């Protein structure tokens, strides 16, 4: 499985060298990860269905204490699937041949993301975590439409501070572990006092809360999503923020279990506030990308709340919704990108009537919208149902407030659809039709909208055992939760 990390790096270098590659060849490059992942399904399947985070690769790396150790279970596999499936979609949506550096950077990032989701060693995890940041730094810096430097440096420094806090926590854990090892199981076996656990937990949570982003740590996010190139926004919202949620599940919960009781009410409250806060602001935005940015705060707030409810439906719903949110938000950004590319603006006040000449696009865009709105038989529903159920099981009043998302989400999503697609045409939207080739990424998205909507169990099967195993590891072994 090292190939999942090596192959994208090699292909990134290759595509960087041959700067005049045909778009389709680079697209095939981007498929490599998915091919490797699915090609190994035969050998991975038993591990994926297993309850524990099984080691795949283990080389000594920095002396005795730090190993190049990769592992997999259902949770990792599911997020690897998301990453490697979305990368080709994102590459397909690139609209200009002038953005030559974009493809190598995306591929490079793919390597980092794959590493994050597989790392089984604390320092390795940190390494990949930062590795994934480097390409997105350059993507936003080089191709942002406005305030590139200010936006990028703020985003980078802000997330980096969080990451350093996490590094401190990891090093502290490593210093207490057996032989100073950073291996996942060794770190997990470290016994922390309550006070230590609070500090270690704070380090992890700061990094993850910034990345998710959880209210009020989201300040970097709206501007970055808005001004970054479409592909950058897709990478950030579709995949990178899942690193934060994954980190909470994989690293924070098991490593600082003792602190969960302390942080649970705080995070739950912040997450539910974020759900409403993001939604209310999203309702008033005219810039489609900014609207999606705020809606994303709302959606991930719900996921974070579900994870912190610490029950089975929360974990499963959270994981499913990570996948679904990745797909839907990429679909939304692709659609916005198509609109902006063809009609020259993404301001809702300057659009309207696109549906009249572009039926297929309308249908696909609407599918993504109702997926996001979580209508039944689309992909948003099962995850949101499970998440709200988990929050309800934690505390019914929280569920009432978090449940407002199903109302608010309909408000801003349908508003966006109305003002962009429906209504009267204007001079800009009157006579243009969108070429079918641009719609290909949306077909992939639409496939997942429908298939997860109708058959969520197919996807839940991938990680149900692992998520139960993880929950068991958190709740029973350390005996924090009754």
């Amino acid at each position, binding site marked *: 499985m090292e190939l999942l990390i090596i192959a994208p790096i090699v292909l990134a270098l290759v595509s960087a060298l041959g700067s005049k590659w045909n778009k389709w060849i680079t697209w095939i490059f981007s498929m490599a990860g998915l091919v490797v992942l699915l090609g190994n399904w035969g050998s991975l399947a038993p591990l994926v269905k297993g309850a524990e985070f099984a080691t795949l690769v283990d080389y000594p790396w920095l002396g005795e204490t730090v190993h190049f150790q990769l592992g997999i279970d259902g949770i990792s596999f599911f997020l690897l699937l998301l990453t490697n499936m979305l990368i080709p979609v994102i590459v397909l949506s690139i609209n200009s041949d002038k953005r030559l550096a974009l493809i190598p950077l995306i591929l490079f990032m793919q390597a980092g993301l794959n590493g994050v989701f597989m790392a089984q060693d604390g320092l390795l995890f940190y390494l990949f975590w930062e590795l994934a940041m480097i390409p997105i730094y350059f993507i936003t810096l080089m191709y942002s439409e406005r305030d590139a430097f200010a936006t990028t440096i*703020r985003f980078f420094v*802000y997330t980096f501070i969080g990451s350093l806090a996490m590094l401190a926590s990891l090093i502290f854990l490593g210093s207490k572990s057996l032989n100073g090892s950073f291996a996942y199981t060794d770190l997990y076996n470290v016994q922390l006092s309550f006070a230590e656990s609070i500090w270690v937990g704070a380090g992890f949570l700061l990094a993850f809360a910034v990345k998710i982003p959880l209210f*009020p740590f*989201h*300040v970097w996010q*709206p*501007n970055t999503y808005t001004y970054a190139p479409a592909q950058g926004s897709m990478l950030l919202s579709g995949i990178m923020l899942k690193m934060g949620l994954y980190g909470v599940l994989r690293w924070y919960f098991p490593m600082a279990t003792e602190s969960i009781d302390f942080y649970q009410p705080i995070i739950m409250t912040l997450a539910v506030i974020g759900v409403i*806060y993001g939604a*209310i*602001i999203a*309702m*008033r*935005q005219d810039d489609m990308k900014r609207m999606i940015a705020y809606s994303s705060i709302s959606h991930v707030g719900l996921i974070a709340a579900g994870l912190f409810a610490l029950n*089975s*439906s929360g974990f*499963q719903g959270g994981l499913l919704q990570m996948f679904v949110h990745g797909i839907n938000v990429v679909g939304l950004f692709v659609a916005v990108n198509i609109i902006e590319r063809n009609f020259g603006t993404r301001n809702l006040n300057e659009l309207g*009537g696109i*549906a*009249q000449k572009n039926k297929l696009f309308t249908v696909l865009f609407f599918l993504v919208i*109702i997926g996001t709105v979580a*209508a*039944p*038989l689309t992909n948003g*529903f*099962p995850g949101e*149902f*499970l998440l*709200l*159920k988990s929050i*309800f*099981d934690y505390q*019914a009043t929280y*569920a*009432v407030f978090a*449940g*407002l998302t*199903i*109302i608010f989400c*309909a*408000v801003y999503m*349908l*508003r966006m659809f*109305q003002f962009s*697609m*429906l*209504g*009267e045409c204007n001079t800009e939207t009157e006579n243009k039709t969108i070429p079918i080739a641009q719609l290909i990424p949306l077909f992939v998205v639409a496939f997942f909208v429908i298939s997860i909507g109708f*058959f*969520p*169990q197919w996807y*839940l099967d991938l990680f*149900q055992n692992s998520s*139960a195993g993880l929950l068991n590891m958190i709740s029973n072994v350390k005996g924090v939760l009754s």
Partner: protein
Amino acid sequence: MNPIALILLFPLLGFALNGTIGHKLPKGIAPWIGTLFIFLPFVITLGQWDILSNDVEATIKWDAYTFFNLDGIIFKAAFTLDRLSIWMTLIITGIGTLIHLYSISYMDHDPNAAKFFSFLNFFVFNMLLLVLGANFLMLFFGWEGVGLCSYLLIGFWYQNASYGKAARKAFIMNRIGDLGLLLGMFLIIKNYGSLEYSDVLPAIAQGTGGSVLLTSIAILLFIGAMGKSAQIPLFTWLPDAMAGPTPVSALIHAATMVTAGIYLVIRCEALYALAPIANEFILWIGLATALIGALIGLRQNDIKKVLAYSTVSQLGFMFVALGVGAYTTALFHVTTHAFFKALLFLGAGSVIHGVHDRQDITQMGGLKKMMPLTYITFLIGTLAISGFPLLSGFFSKDEILASVFHHNIVAYIVLVIAALLTATYMFRLLFLTFHGEFRGTDYALKDVHESNWKMTTPLVVLAVLSILGGVLNLPHYLLHTDGFLASWLRPTFLIFENPAHTDITTEIILIGVAISIFLFGFIYSRSRYITKNMSPEQSTAGIEKVLSNKFYIDEFYQKAIVRPIEFLGDILFALVDTLLLYGLTFSVHPILRFIGRFNRKIQNGNIEYYLLYMVGAIALLLGLNLLFA
């Protein structure tokens, strides 16, 4: 193949066919596909009737697949056809077929007819999902699905931005209710570990769960019903929903979708029978809705708006019946209402079609000569809804009044007033549209034409049903036994027993009241609009102005809820997010720069200073070493 699978499959297939290749087919094919694929499930459902009628215990089940599985709680896509759901299915597919047939010529000139039929089929699919589902999850799927279809169909003419607004309003207000339903479902899962009717309802009937729990579940589910069935305070979407094509109003916003709330309560009869507080709540909500809907209906001048408020009011009647525990009666009224309200809407559609897409009754009058068939059927519908003796509405409404009379006399009086208003506004509508002088200004009476057979056939069929619908559940005083529907439904109820019957004198008094209500409404409207030949009121002043402005409820919601939220959104964005959070966080940056301005002097690029610092630092370290060693 399982009959339920077939029943569900055909509308879905129709949706898929018309949605994908419908517009490429030769003109006129797509509508017939749509109609046929609703008629086939009707036939299939009828074929199952015998199985259910021969054996009171019989149900037809279909477990399609496991939707998802959560720690042993299995959420199934499972369906069941029992005596309640077959009744609803027949209404949906039967009336659905008629309305599809009607739509063929109604939507004839629309270039997007295939899309229309595809949405309509999808609506029927979702509605069937709702009534056939064997658990709350499938009910919720259908529940949200019909909301979505309603959104799509209200906004069918999407170029018009105000239609789009109405569509979004409908969807969003429905979602408010859906949240209640969803929370109710969570409460059920938490306490009963399942969403299957067959697990939950018997457990409730056997007394599992305290009264607080049952009441909370009942009220939460009812909030869902309030959204879908347009009850106060969530009713304002329904009149706006009239923006959609008229067949949509007939099918979705009169006959089927809006009765989903009533279906839900009847389905959960075991729950509601044990939650008296919730019942009282339902009763008063229903009463208020019945009254306010009827009051507003008095002074509307849009032919469809009058019918819309009439629907709101009639739905209130049904909830009143549910509130007093008369479940059979409520379903009976659902059925007859489906007949006569679909008839009235289709009649209205025929009128609108005949006068070239105008809906304002101030511009109509005297149409009965030009549209005789439409007039007669509309008249029958009006008589039925107003409670003309022996027509369908007479029996069902009388039953509701009778059950309320036994329950609460105040509620009875309020409901009598609402019924009286019903007769009044319906005859007002009839007289202003069809009788008197023609008042149109921008078109001539001779342009008005009767509709073709595809539109009139459903009218005639529905008119016959509106006349004869009463036989489905004739009252006790005529039969001296339970009516057909009452005995048909009894096996599906876990707790509810058909109420004991009162003595004949009370019945006669009640019937007398019912008939005088009808007569009063008729005579009042006749004297006002025919004898005195008054033209429709323009909103003048006082109470009439309030009525024609719908009690300013929309304006109130706008000012009290929508504006504050929008304002909050702006405030949060401008002040909290941009200024406070963003500003505060990144104000660190100028502070650091300020500090840097001093530090910069140290780093002046002159190598001597660097050396000096180095030597100084080494000396310091050495000194410290000497000091502490």
